[in-house]
């Protein structure tokens, strides 16, 4: 069991917020890759399905010292406390419609299993889960561009980013066909947002594979954080952080920024706490 675990993939992402321009390519690439529907008015962002959502963050200062950064937020594919696979959403789904892939680290969503109780949405602090409040409807003829790789969702169920799981399946099939099923080359499995990003701000790959760029940037610490035993996989790169890391969600989406104020926006800190913590960022390596 232990050995198998070591072999398992752990797909993840690191997003360079200093490179991100907020252009929206990742969002649209995701929508068209995954047959995401659209409706007349999408300006109510609390009712707008965007698996990949780009948040606009500011440093809160006034003119002319104000700064902006864009933060793309796909599903964070949490590993849950201690990275044991009990993501906030997976552990609460009553019908096992969302599941944690121990071989990939990907949190799946089975649309035909979900009956729409929305407990997972309540459990997710990242608002990465979306409910189909309406029937998906395409203008006449437009359904012809739908991709057969991802089934369109019916109303009344929850959907979310799958790290383009169908692309993983295709890459895995290819690896099988080529006779080396354990070796999925980095470039063979890339999510739609990663490949679309014109700024190259998104890097995707296997966090468990030291040859992958994402591993090299993140340098995930395999040991629990000595300050918080629930946190595993903390980055040893001082410029890399995760969203709400302290909750112990153990996300697989990392963010990178040179700017301190940006890194600080990644989590909640009590007054004065950040100044103590920031110096310890990425120092928990155990060799």
């Amino acid at each position, binding site marked *: 069991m232990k050995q198998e675990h070591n072999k398992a993939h752990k797909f993840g992402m690191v997003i360079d917020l200093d490179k991100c321009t907020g252009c929206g390519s990742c969002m649209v690439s995701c929508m*068209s890759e995954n047959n995401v529907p659209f409706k007349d008015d999408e300006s109510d962002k609390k009712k707008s399905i965007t698996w990949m959502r780009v948040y606009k963050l500011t440093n809160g200062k*006034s*003119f*002319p010292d*104000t700064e902006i950064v864009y933060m793309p937020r796909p599903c964070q594919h949490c590993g849950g406390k201690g990275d044991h696979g009990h993501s906030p959403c997976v552990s609460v789904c009553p019908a096992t419609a969302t599941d944690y892939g121990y071989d990939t680290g990907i949190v799946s969503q089975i649309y035909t299993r979900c009956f729409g109780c929305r407990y997972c949405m309540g459990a997710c602090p990242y608002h990465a889960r979306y409910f189909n409040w309406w029937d998906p409807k395409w*203008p006449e003829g437009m359904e012809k561009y739908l991709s057969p790789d991802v089934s369109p969702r*019916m109303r009344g169920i929850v959907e979310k980013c799958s790290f383009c799981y169908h692309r993983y399946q295709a890459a895995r099939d290819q690896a099988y066909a080529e006779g080396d099923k354990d070796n999925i080359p980095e470039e063979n499995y890339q999510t739609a947002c990663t490949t679309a990003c*014109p700024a190259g701000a998104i890097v995707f790959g296997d966090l468990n594979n030291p040859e992958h760029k994402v591993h090299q940037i993140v340098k995930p610490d395999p040991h629990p954080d000595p300050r918080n035993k629930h946190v595993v996989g903390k980055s040893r790169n001082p410029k890399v952080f995760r969203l709400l890391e302290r909750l112990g969600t153990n996300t697989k989406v990392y963010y990178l920024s040179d700017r301190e104020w940006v890194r600080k926006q990644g989590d909640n800190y009590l007054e004065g706490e950040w100044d103590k913590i920031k110096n310890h960022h990425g120092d928990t390596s155990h060799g």
Partner: protein
Amino acid sequence: MKVDRRSFLGLGLGAAAGITVSPMMLKIMDDSSILTQTTKTWPWALDHPPFDGEVSYESSVCSLCPGSCGISVRKIDDRPVKIEGLADYPINDGGACLHGIAGLQYLYDPARVKTPLKKNGDKFEEISWDDAIALVAGKLSDIRKSGSPEKLACIADKGQGSVSGLFKRLLKTFGSPNFYTMPSLESYLEVTAAALHGEGKTIGFDLENANFVLSFGAGIIEGWGSPVNCFKANASRKDRHAKLYQIEPRLSNTAANADKWIPIKPGTQADLALGMCAVILKNNLFNSMATGFTGFSKLTAMLQKEYSPSKTSEITGVKAADIEKMAISFAKAKMPLAVFGKGRGDGAQSLKEMAAVHTLNCLVGNINKKGGAFILPKNDYLEFPGESMDNTARKGFSKAKTGRYVNQLVEKVNASSKPVVEALFVYNSNPCYALHNPKSVKEAIGKIPFVVSFSSYLDETAMEADIVLPSHTFVERLEDVPSGAGLAKTVVGLTKPVIEPVFDTKNPGDAVISIAKALEGSIAENFEWESYEECLENVTSGIWDSLSEDGVAVISEGVPSGFVNVNISFIANNPVTIQAQGDYDLTLIPIDNMRLISAGTAASPFAIKTVADTVLKGTDIVVEINPLTAKGLKDKGFATLTTPMGTARVKVNLNEGMMPGVIGMVEGLGHTFDNKFVSNKGVNVNDLIGPVIESGSGLDAAFGIKAKIS
């Protein structure tokens, strides 16, 4: 009685119990869930799940904007399902912008024109292609017979490429010089190059290599130039340790991403550039070649008098010390580059500003150097055979153009009581939306007796037309797509049809050829191609092999060589800086947002979906305003915005990234055609801004307009 009731009750209970435990229940439950498994169940939803089939990829070029990116279209059998950036393409190398990725939504756009249309009263009726061509040709013949062929005009989106070439050729052999293009960065680059370096040239910016970019409001990551190319150049900046300073009144995405944001009073970029020139000259930091520029001494004298740091500071609102520091670091940088073209670079621009900024390049000597500004010959790969013209054509064509730019054409048409233009072709452009004061444009078009629109969509301008000849969209059409847009290299790509036309549309090239043939005589003689395809192969023969095999031909790459003549007398004369129209206290400026399209085409439903609720909320447009300026206005509250051109109900976004005294309104909203996903949302900022013509250049240089908000 008692027995009856008892047995009845017993029977009922027994039946209920029986049904509950029988397999029927299981069957019903199982069916019920299967019923919900597919969207097919719901008649109002999808008819069927997407069909599977064989996967293939086809390469093409996106022509939605001047960026001209290579795209890879994933197909399932003959059905395109996804557009992605094409790896290794010389412009975008795999990247793609959201509009291109959403390209398939344009294919099935509800506003598409499905067949030729003829206006009958207020309504369009469908007609056949043959009838439509005959109608157009008949009308044109009448005009020609009346002896004033110059009264046929054409407005196209750009002047390059073989389709524009065919339009020009048609006009020329018909006898009209009145070919116009919509304002675009490409046209501004040519105008600026003409002013400083002579006719027939354009400017390319080597953003990929420059190590100090001084952008005078150019929205390098807002869609300026060739967007994806700029994104890539900008992203590599971090690794190259190159600097970007962004000079504009608003904390745009480019400003936010830049190393430094220098807020400046709207419309004073030219003055800042000149102030910096003055510092460079004063500190002897200019390239020795500069003394040989025509007008150098005049410029030096003028700058010393008019553009001292303190004076410049007063005009621009930028601190004098900052101006000096910035000018000195710019001049001392290894590969400095000053970039002009506010926003996307396709809106109104002032030649003074562009020339002043480019003078900075000239002074520091980065012309035709790595990381600098490249002076390139105008992209001229097309080899149309020489025209044969009859007398009427020659006479008409030799007449002066009605106006220099579209704006003047509109003005002239509106000013005259007699028809200045008898017939108008509108190709791939939407002047009734994209120009300042579209109301006057509509008025002018209404005065033209016969308007033919070559458009894929029933957009604002097509709605005003008498005949609509529907075009293939870029995924259905064959076309050569030359890059322009300030790229440091010259590339021609080939857009290829990746799907059979969905509707009864034609390649606009074919439409033009058909019209020409129907006009017969000397005009038809000039269009002796069987089809547009044959024409394209013919006129691009020099690069056709490369185009057809690789899908792209690189015409020039790398640093151009050769001496470049520089003439700075235009700027040395210190032309007047354009002022905003009106006398309210605040200034309204248009904002460029990558997720919207400011030119004629509307953004796709997907793109609109990505637009933040601080830009568009419901059907209300949201304007950005500094909290200091927004006295009494509440964030997310409604307000009335008034300019000399009109008023609009807007929502307010209190934004610290906006310079006090300035209101920002996004471009690209307020479309009015029939597509509920993108239209009737917000207002068109052009409705609130009127053109202000720059004397000398004749350009509409309105950077904004005075406004009040309450």
